[in-house]
């Protein structure tokens, strides 16, 4: 599945672009339900992973790098989730969703290869990237 910016995220982008509402740092979260992102989704659609040493990661705006081109893209340093064991509640991570720091509004989401942390030291590595074209 490819990265999807739902309707809520599109509005946030437009408002920031037109200086209507300031953007906030995006927070990357892993979701633990086997769903495909849809344009009608909200942050509440996703069940965030829990347990096993999991924590969401904030990707501060000042630390993104921006490159114009075809396509233009924004990149952030690779993020590593290192687990201490199994997730609780739902055992498998199916992708990530990104929300705004203050609003909690869903910005974008992506389903990826599912992964079931089991052992201390199991890792998910994700290099945040978003393009515009």
């Amino acid at each position: 599945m490819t990265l999807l910016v739902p309707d809520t995220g599109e509005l946030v982008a437009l408002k920031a672009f037109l200086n209507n509402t300031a953007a906030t740092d995006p927070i990357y979260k892993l979701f633990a339900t086997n769903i495909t992102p849809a344009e009608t989704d909200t942050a509440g659609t996703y069940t965030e992973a829990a347990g096993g040493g999991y924590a969401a990661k904030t990707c501060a705006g000042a630390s993104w790098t921006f490159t114009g081109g075809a396509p233009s893209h924004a990149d952030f340093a690779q993020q590593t989730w290192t687990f201490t064991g199994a997730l609780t509640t739902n055992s498998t991570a199916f992708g990530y969703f990104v929300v705004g720091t203050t609003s909690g509004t869903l910005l974008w989401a992506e389903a990826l290869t599912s992964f079931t942390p089991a052992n201390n030291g199991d890792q998910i590595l994700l290099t945040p990237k978003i393009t515009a074209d």
Partner: protein
Amino acid sequence: MGLFDRFRKQVPPAPSVRTVVWEPRPLPKEARFALKKLELRPGMWVMTPNGAGILRDITAAGDLDVMLTDQDGVNKLGIYTPVGSVTQATLAQIPSARLHDDIDKLNAQGYY
């Protein structure tokens, strides 16, 4: 094996640590344009002959990549289906667990 090896504590091997690398992938421009020409959108809820699902992509051959969902909106089966076989889903066809309550916004996206 030596005499004292019999009494040596057997330490089980440490479980191997696994790492998965996730790489975000944008929908290629060609696919976005192809879907736009068909008045379709990635992430759109569609109705197929096999049930409701979420449009994910379009193949080079022009078939639609759709993830069918169950009544809870959870992934059920990924299929490829001809373009002419899908329509935009109605509100009644979308699993309620995947719907928010802002009907005006849903209507604005063509969901009735």
